[in-house]
């Protein structure tokens, strides 16, 4: 049916993950995607079905290809708070997960992977006590909010 795709789906998906990590979902228009990914509009729709379809593919690609090296570092006890690998996941948790069951499930799975990596990590020498409680609070709120889509209708 129609023309062959004529583009590297993996590369486009990876580039989309980069775009979505840097800007709000609604801030990325189809015009932006067409221009920055260098793919024809019709091909985008044909391949991914919708902007959401491309977003889900990008998020899945990111979790499969980018998250593992981060979890390895975490398990080895490295500090990764400055690592931008978490950005797409954070944006997904804040923006999309509360209203998109599919995104909520992917985000929950990623949290689980990160939790497990942290459990394998060697015990850290005395956390700085001042920031720990706030960090925990922010993290807990983030996770609670991202889980609302999977918990039931809002």
């Amino acid at each position, binding site marked *: 049916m129609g023309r062959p795709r004529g583009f590297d789906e993996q590369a486009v998906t990876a580039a989309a993950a980069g775009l979505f990590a840097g800007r709000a979902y609604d801030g990325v228009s*189809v015009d932006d995607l067409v221009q920055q990914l260098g793919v024809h509009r019709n091909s985008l729709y044909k391949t991914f*079905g919708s902007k959401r379809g491309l977003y889900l593919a990008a998020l899945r690609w990111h979790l499969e290809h980018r998250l593992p090296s981060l979890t390895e570092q975490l398990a080895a006890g490295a500090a990764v708070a400055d690592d931008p690998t978490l950005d797409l996941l954070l944006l997904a948790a804040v923006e999309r997960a509360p209203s998109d069951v599919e995104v909520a499930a992917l985000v929950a799975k990623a949290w689980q992977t990160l939790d497990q990596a942290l459990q394998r990590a060697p015990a850290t020498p005395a956390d700085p006590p001042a920031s720990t409680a706030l960090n925990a609070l922010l993290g807990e709120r983030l996770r609670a909010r991202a889980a609302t889509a999977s918990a039931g209708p809002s």
Partner: protein
Amino acid sequence: MATVRVDGDDLVVEIEGMDRLWSLKSRLVIPLANVRGATADPGIAAEPKGLRAPGTSVPGVITAGTFHQDGERVFWNIRDGARAVVIELADERYARLVVEVADPAATVALIEQAVPR
């Protein structure tokens, strides 16, 4: 302008007012199983539409009816396209529908929630 609603297992797209004359169609019923997704896409109005048959096209005023491009059949019903929503289909007469709706974000949310995946 079109209204999009979910009726049981179907997506129903109804063309309103005079626009149904221009597009020679007043109603499309698509099983939800054949709906791949929906996207608000005001920029699509600027894209080439391909060959029209049958329907109406007055550039800058109205694009309505069936258009053929790259071996695909696409149903258009837009005026300026600012509120265009693209509905991608599978195993249907049309590869996709490009219709103008009152509230693109609400229409996209409706379709995304209705389409299982």
